[in-house]
């Protein structure tokens, strides 16, 4: 990822994470619900690793970047404990953008192998993932 946008593979990875969490019956709300679930599932291990404040600052940065792409996220906020507030059914695609930025920031800071390791710990079904824009294998 760079400062101007998200690597398409990371965007695809985010979408895949959402699909793994997408169990809502109401399809219009599926992505929103999934984005909340992905964020929540990332919150616990990342708060353990980086502290609550560490995870919160990472999510806030991801939200700031996502709002530039998806202004519909303007009403969304990160609470003190690092959970999301204000993400509802209106932001169908925006949830994926937010998660993509969150994963992208992780990849920027700690690199692809460690990021994938963290994600695999949470979603063991996630396999064959390549986050590099030059990678051969698509998600």
């Amino acid at each position, binding site marked *: 990822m760079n400062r101007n946008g998200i690597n398409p593979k990371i965007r695809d990875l985010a979408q895949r994470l959402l699909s793994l969490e997408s169990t809502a019956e109401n399809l219009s709300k599926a992505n929103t619900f999934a984005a909340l679930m992905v964020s929540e599932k990332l919150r616990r291990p990342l*708060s*353990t*690793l980086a502290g609550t*404040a*560490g995870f919160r600052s990472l999510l806030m940065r991801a939200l700031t970047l996502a709002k530039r792409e998806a202004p519909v996220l303007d009403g969304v906020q990160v609470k003190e404990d690092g959970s999301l507030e204000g993400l509802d059914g209106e932001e169908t695609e925006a949830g994926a953008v937010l998660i993509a930025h969150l994963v992208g920031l992780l990849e920027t*800071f700690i690199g692809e192998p*460690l990021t994938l*390791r*963290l994600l695999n710990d949470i979603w063991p079904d996630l396999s064959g993932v390549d986050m590099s824009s030059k990678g051969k294998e698509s998600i």
Partner: protein
Amino acid sequence: MKEHKGVRINKLPSGVPGLDEILGGGLPEFSFNIVAGAPGCGKTTLAHQFIFANATPDRPALYFTVLGEPALKMLRYQQQYSFFDAEKLNNAVHFINLSKALVDGGLQGVLKEISKQVEKSDARIVVVDSFRSVLRSEQHDGREMAAQVFVQELALLLTSAEATTFLIGEYGESEMEDNPVFTVADGLFWLYQQVERNSVVRKLQIMKLRGQMSVPGLHTFRITDSGLQAFSRTLGLMARKPKAAIKKRLSTGIATLDEMMGGGIPQGDSLLIAGPSGTGKSLLATQFIAAGIRVGEPGIVAVFEERPEEYAGRAATFGLDLETPLEKGNLEVIYLRPLDLSVDEMMQEILDAIERTGAKRLVIDSLAGFELALAPGFRIDFRESLYRMIFALTGKGITVLSTLEMVESFTELLFSTYAISFLTDDIVRMRYVEIDGQLRKILMVVKMRGGAHSSDIREYRITSDGIDIGDCLRDYTKLITGIPTRTKGPQH
């Protein structure tokens, strides 16, 4: 011999090359250790090397971070080191941030969280980084007792849990006294980063290590892409056998010089070749190495004044093939010129090369270049360090030939400018003399500790085949002044 009946303490590898030897074999299992020093001196990296060397899924490590370097940035930087194994993350090595526990619950909150995590994971290695941050939260307004109780409880908890512990803290030496942390600790490692003129020198000291003998004193270390590497001030040879009485003589590669030396250089001797620039010291050293290669004795050449690739090329101009042994691995040319080198570090390089090549011969070309490559602080101790190094190497049976550049005086003959003659077993002196309007060269064997040697002063020439030693200049006196007087034939 008295039978040892005490409890046997397992020693864990530190993961830092050279450190286990300083520790006396490794880090005592279940020990409660402090790693102290100023910011930037390598404390966190040392702890990481330890955990990645020892942690397994069955014996996991917990790395607690507290109000210091953000964990994500720490991972970002630490993964640049070659010892970092991403596969161990969240598998054998777990990073846990304690900031919230500290802010919400103070020292007791931290203790509770560590206890919970250690119990949950059955951790056998625990690191708290920075422990100083934890204690600072309570070390004010007469709350020192709370900190002391906390340290005591933490030590009890982690020892009972069979964990080997590292507490990392930014401490100054002045804080050593009356500090409960240092009293409770089994091991105290102090890392220093000293600026000496324009050089930075890193040193470490094992100030305390319960249960085993560590090597006292300050040991230099370096931080490279592989992490910390320590260089014991015993030069890695403390436990090795002393020099044996070996009578074998090694050829210098110059038959006449061997003759003058009473049959060559006694194996395991240290030979000094001293003389001014251009007299052929390096050539003599190269012939010595080449002669060894010819009879199956691998060699090492430590050069400071020319690059390794130039060395073999220059030898070839004298008909000496060093390319082949270099390719085969029975010759290594070590080129070190970092400008903040320590003798211990140089010694480690040589020992590693000896291990790789099985070398019997070593050339140091030259001592002046070697001294210049040292950090200024180490130059003060150059004689002492050189003595330790030569003593250690010759004790292993390595024959060491060192060259020494001399500023020529035409009134007297100096053996060396370093007053290091006593360090060497044998000395060959080369010098210029003025004869018949020509600048000619003479050499003499000044000292052979191992026995008799020729007292001749012989003229020599540098030819395309190397050094060619001629006859003794018997028709002259005052040769060693450089301005001789002819005693027979036409007078000057």
